[in-house]
């Protein structure tokens, strides 16, 4: 269930819900004039809150640390394939946008979109 290292460039430490120390994989890709921020759930290697449950607060913490304008990034959540026997652990990428109340809206990326993004 360990997330392969090729999913991220660095481990990002963040404060999860109730400020619980938490970790995620982080990869920042600049492509076509856009900045894609990909946060990857680390499952058992994340001692705290999941990237999805932290949502807006994680995006904000990354932008503050990396000096990025939150309104101008494309924020993506990745739940990797962990080679579990359970098939629903398939890799998935979601584009996350936040409304005025910081509530997240999700759009699942197609396999083609993921391929173009990562190649």
């Amino acid at each position, binding site marked *: 269930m360990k997330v392969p290292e090729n999913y991220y460039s660095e481990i990002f430490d963040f404060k999860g819900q109730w400020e619980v120390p938490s970790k995620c994989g982080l990869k920042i890709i600049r492509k076509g004039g856009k900045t894609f921020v990909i946060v990857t759930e680390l499952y*058992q290697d994340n001692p705290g809150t999941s990237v999805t449950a932290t949502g807006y607060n994680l995006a904000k913490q990354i932008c503050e640390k990396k000096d990025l304008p939150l309104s101008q990034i494309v924020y993506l959540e990745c739940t990797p394939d962990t080679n579990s026997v359970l098939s*629903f652990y398939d890799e998935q990428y979601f584009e996350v946008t936040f409304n005025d109340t910081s509530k997240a809206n*999700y759009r699942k990326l197609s396999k083609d979109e993921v391929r173009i993004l990562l190649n």
Partner: protein
Amino acid sequence: MKFKLIYPKWNKLPGQTTFNLPPHGPVVFAAALPADVQVSFTDENVEAINFDEACDFVGISMMLSTQVRRGWAIADEFRRRGKKVIFGGISTMLHAEETTEYADAVFLGEAEGRMEEVINDFKNNTLKKIYNFMGKHPAIETVGPARRDLYNRDLYNHKGVQMVDLFHASRGCRFSCYPCAVSYLGGRVFRPRPVEKVVEDLATIENNRLFVVDNSLAQDKEWETQLFKEMIPFKKKWISHTIEDDPKILDLAAQAGAWYVYQAVYDTSDYIKERIKRYHDYGIGVEGTILLGLDNQNEDDIKRLIDFLLEIDLDLAEFTVMTPFPHTKAYDDLLRENRIFNHDWNHYNAGQVVFHPKQMSANKLQELYDYAWTTFYADESQESKMMRLFTKVVMREMEDGTYRPRNRELVNKSFGKEIIRKP
């Protein structure tokens, strides 16, 4: 100082045999309170709450998502009477943000070594809204014997038979199972209690039947071996979750009194079939726990799984539908895909479908859940199968001289209520 500790009631699943077990969380929490705090405990599942009982401070301990709405309503009643209310327990942690709206204080995390601060704040009228100890686990050796003296024992008795006592030998879990919140609640590191502490706790339990509630005992072979060796002299009979699939450990578990285990049955493989057989080879019964509605299951898969259960000689089976409890991967996945259609926590009982399954409609999954219970117990009822397991444990107790006959004074009562017999 008088502390009123409440365990809220919840609606039991329809059509299933209801047993009220003495709850574990509240008495473990109570053991962490300072010695000068007098505790009065009410489990609302077996007795009514007296909202006018004299007390200084009220604590509401919640384990299940189906308890939280009732817990909030109880808090409202006490707060209307001018009492301060603190919430704790695992479903408080899962539903913390909402719970703060109904609380004077919310305690998140494990209580050992932290309650002096809370009680002092209460006495000084400086109670904080949130006591956040999530992820900051107290040293495991500080977990002492639970306050089982707080139970009204007669209320956990069915027709003269005392219900099992709940007991824990470890916290945390190194597994991150898909629908489970334990790694969020107790951490992703397995934290076994020192065996001498477990023995000290066991020695305080008069009941000769236990439910070892640890998520899985199969996490540290050396500790598990030592634990079972130390449990043998107590001659207790116990239920637990998974035990290590190792002949030596299974043998020790049987000697230590393993009665039956809850074992997840998630596919129709020979591995599962052999796993069940190995428990039986050592005289340990198996209650299969079967989760329905995972994304990789279609209708045929579920029906095939149920057929398989009938082939592998399970002693009991318990079916649940996938339920996206907050702070699980399941919740995150279904939330992102906008597949959760019901957010009423009273319905998060693992018997009611609250999400759109991937390969069938929610109604179809609900039908299959009912079909699973009906089909598995078609030839022999759940009560009858339970009776067979019960008879086995009685026989073993008679062999080793620990059998205690029914309490004749309570044979006409079930969980504190008179049994009304049909003429």
